[in-house]
């Protein structure tokens, strides 16, 4: 009896303890649902928007000593909706009918650019240990404990109250006002909405102002109950954890998102309270206790996506008036004049010969290292070319596949002293197998849900698998690192940086040729057919499931191979630096922003990722142009924040050019040159006919 009552008390305590965390998840999940429902965007920049309002509120309270109401008014009800309206006007208005991948890329770009922009322009810098304050006086120091089991702070109670009020108010807006129906209509078909006499732009701007205000409110409420210091990355991480709660709401139901958020908070608290105790008595539970507690939200998310039929049934509703859009333009390469093709080839060969010879004979060690990094990264990026460029699937776990290649090389070399080159091929094959197995349960998921499932896998890999001794090396790796030797092939020792660069170039060229062959071959054509129309493809006997599994496996193989090369190059796996889930988000954005369907796109993305910081931000290129380092202007080296801003701006440009910035440039150049050549040909024809005409008379 005593045992039972103690159990119930512990259960109640853990549930109450989990409620504030649940409230935080619910706030973010409701934000996700609100933005998705009113604008069709799965907004990974929600955390960035929340951070800006929280930081503004914090600055107003602590630096300017403004009152709480005035600080809330400015940070939540002025700044936040203004940001929403600006984002809508300059970005999302152009993306209304864009694909899920385009919208996702832009929000990832925003999630890094917005905080950096705010910190530069508002002159705000997070100070460690300065705890955020809430919207109620003494919010963090006055507690209420009505049941005598767990005390809630005023800040926590305020957050819970606001969430309830928000769900009721937002629910009423959707149910009882015309604007609720209009916002949903604009998401589905802005043109159909306008045919009904409704100005889609205004409705859309209102929707963004509303969701951005909610993000701001969420930021101000979350900060004091969750963080000790206001740092943008913390908001970024909370957003990922809360995706599970948004999935419970299927991205459309506000009450379900609320229940999902609170439920997730409870589940994590109960799990963390009882599992350690049970694991003391039952040894088989210990691995679960040691490894799973961090990954619970992602396990929940993956399980929801795989086992909940409602999610599998959810399909993207297309715009019935999409036929109004002009057909997508053909790749520039297929339309350019043969003279331009020859010139481009000649230029490319010349350029690479020049760069290659300069690097081999003139460059110092650090430059050889950078160029090798670029080549190896380009190989990894080819995996994105296959899965996103050819198959049209969004995969946010390419970092995990690359890490599998890297860890395999480490384990094989460490445990069995196997040749690292052979280990690299084994690693790539294991990655391909994992890719194929992972793709099986998520094949039926459409657009954004597939992206979320791959993200869940990436975080699960990060939180659980990497910690296992037979993958990431466990405690040994923590103490000694994950060291990997350079390969030796017969008489050639790739321990020399320049010879390893040659090896990296060979691997990249072979992979590129294979990728081009894949695009032109049966698999490439099959994937193109599925992208065009899955139903039509099925009707001619194509199995989309098989094609997608093949695409995932091939892409994971390439990522694994690239990851293995990267590991050998750095002589260490360096998981956190090279392969973290957030890092692979940036990979996707970079490749997609430049050009996702071409091998050149992957190569240029690899070069940009490796070279941008030393060449541009540190001013090496400028110094080289000036022929003297001491003449560099004082603003060099440029703050690292600008890297984020420029990265974000690049992703935003993508909103206008979804074919990729490089492809856009190529198309313009091709069109211009084709016009000029056509004019020249016409002039020749005219003069020839004039000549022959003159001869006749």
């Amino acid at each position, binding site marked *: 009896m005593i045992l039972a009552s103690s159990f119930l008390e512990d259960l109640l305590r853990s549930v109450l303890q989990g409620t504030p965390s649940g409230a935080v998840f619910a706030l973010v999940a409701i934000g996700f649902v609100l933005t998705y429902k009113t604008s069709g965007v799965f907004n990974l920049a929600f955390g960035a928007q929340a951070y800006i309002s929280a930081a503004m509120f914090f600055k107003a309270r602590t630096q300017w000593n403004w009152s709480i109401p005035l600080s809330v008014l400015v940070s939540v009800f002025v700044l936040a909706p203004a940001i929403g309206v600006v984002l809508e006007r300059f970005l999302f208005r152009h993306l209304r009918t864009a694909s899920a991948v385009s919208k996702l890329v832009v929000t990832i770009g925003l999630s890094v650019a917005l905080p950096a922009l705010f910190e530069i322009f508002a002159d705000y810098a997070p100070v460690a240990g300065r705890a955020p304050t809430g919207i109620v006086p003494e919010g963090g120091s006055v507690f209420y404990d009505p049941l005598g089991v767990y005390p809630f702070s005023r800040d926590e109670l305020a957050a819970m109250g606001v969430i309830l009020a928000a769900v009721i108010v937002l629910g009423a807006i959707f149910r009882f006002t*015309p604007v609720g*129906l*209009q916002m*949903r*209509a604009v998401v*589905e*078909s802005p*043109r*159909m*909405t*306008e*045919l*009904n*006499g*409704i*100005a*889609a*732009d205004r409705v859309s701007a209102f929707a963004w102002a509303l969701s951005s205000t909610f993000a701001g409110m969420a930021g101000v409420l979350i900060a004091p109950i969750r963080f000790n210091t206001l740092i943008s990355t913390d908001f970024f991480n909370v957003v990922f954890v809360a995706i599970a709660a948004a999935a419970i709401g299927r991205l459309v139901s506000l009450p379900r998102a609320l229940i999902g958020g609170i439920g997730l908070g409870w589940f994590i608290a109960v799990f963390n309270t009882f599992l350690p105790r049970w694991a003391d008595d039952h040894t088989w539970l210990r691995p679960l206790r040691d490894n799973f507690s961090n990954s619970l939200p992602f396990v929940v998310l993956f399980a929801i996506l795989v086992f909940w039929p409602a999610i599998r049934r959810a399909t993207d*509703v297309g715009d*019935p*008036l999409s036929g*109004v*859009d*002009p*057909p997508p*333009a053909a790749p520039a390469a297929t339309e350019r004049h043969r003279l331009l093709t020859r010139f481009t080839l000649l230029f490319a060969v010349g350029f690479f010969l020049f760069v290659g010879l300069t690097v081999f004979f003139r460059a110092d060690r650090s430059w050889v290292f950078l160029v090798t990094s670029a080549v190896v990264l380009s190989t990894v990026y080819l995996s994105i070319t296959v899965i996103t460029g050819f198959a049209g699937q969004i995969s946010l776990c390419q970092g995990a596949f690359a890490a599998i290649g890297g860890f395999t090389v480490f384990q094989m070399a460490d445990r069995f002293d196997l040749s690292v080159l052979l280990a690299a091929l084994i690693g790539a094959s294991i990655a391909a197998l994992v890719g194929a197995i992972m793709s099986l349960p998520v094949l039926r998921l459409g657009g954004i849900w597939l992206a979320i499932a791959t993200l869940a896998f990436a975080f699960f890999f990060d939180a659980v698998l990497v910690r296992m001794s037979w993958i990431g090396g466990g405690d040994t790796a923590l103490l000694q690192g994950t060291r990997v030797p350079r390969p030796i092939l017969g008489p050639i020792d790739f321990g020399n940086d320049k010879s390893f660069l040659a090896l990296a170039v060979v691997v990249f060229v072979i992979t590129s040729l294979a990728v081009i062959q894949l695009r032109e071959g049966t698999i490439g054509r099959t994937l193109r057919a599925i992208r065009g129309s899955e139903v039509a493809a099925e009707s001619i006997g194509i199995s989309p499931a098989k094609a997608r599994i093949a695409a995932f496996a091939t892409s994971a193989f390439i990522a694994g191979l690239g990851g293995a090369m990267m590991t050998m190059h750095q002589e260490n796996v360096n998981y956190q630096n090279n392969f973290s889930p957030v890092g692979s988000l940036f990979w996707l954005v970079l490749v997609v922003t430049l050009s996702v369907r071409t091998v050149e796109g992957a190569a240029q993305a690899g070069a940009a990722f490796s070279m941008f910081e030393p060449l541009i931000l540190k001013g090496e290129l400028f110094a080289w142009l000036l022929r003297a380092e001491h003449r560099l202007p004082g603003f060099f080296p440029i703050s690292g924040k600008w890297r984020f801003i420029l990265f974000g701006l690049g992703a935003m440009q993508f909103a206008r050019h979804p074919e990729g910035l490089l492809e856009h440039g190529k198309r313009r150049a091709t069109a211009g040159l084709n016009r000029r050549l056509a004019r020249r040909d016409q002039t020749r024809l005219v003069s020839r006919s004039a000549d022959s005409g003159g001869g006749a008379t």
Partner: protein
Amino acid sequence: MTALLELRDVWAEYGPFRALFGVDLKVPPGGAVALLGANGAGKTTVARVATGLVQASAGDVAVDGIEMTNRPTYAYARAGIAHAPEGRSIFASFTVEENLTLTFRSFLGRQKVGESLEQAFELFPRLGERRSQTAGTLSGGEQRMLSLARVLVLQPRLLIADELSLGLAPIVVDEVYSTLEAIRSSGTALLIVEQHMAHALELCDDAVLLEHGKVAWQGSASDAGDVVTGRLFESAGD
């Protein structure tokens, strides 16, 4: 008399593909014009230009003599032009009732929503039976009924109907045309885009025949049948 809708030397493209090459067209207030032509002649593009869905790259569009070229689609709707686009032009994730409510509330105001819903369900009883069903789960014909019900109840100043009869049973097509006659007699002008001419020519005063994005012939609807058949034989002879 100023035309209700006038297109003057309109050119239009979809990206690199040109669809219209200087089209002129007039619909007088209360008039009815049938827009005829083979597949790919540019009929749907004319309907889209007349409601701002596709912007004319050259030429002018005017409503009541007022220049509307490059104005957004909602401005055309607010000027009293209703458009039932080709195919299943509905909000698939909305219920039947939500689809209709969005249109009626916007055009007729909150008070008239209930009354208009009843009229729509009277016109298409099948929709009444499925008023709470998600529109995307309706059959093809029912979805077409829904997109027509939206505009038939409105009694706008001009109704542009694109391929009305497509996907509907013959008996339903007859009903739709008798409704069109009724709204026409109450003052609504019509621009009917049809491949199947018989019904359209019976209803309309004038006809315009499009060929390869250009106006090939225009005149009285009563003459159109012979002209179109003649041209068909001519092209068969070529």
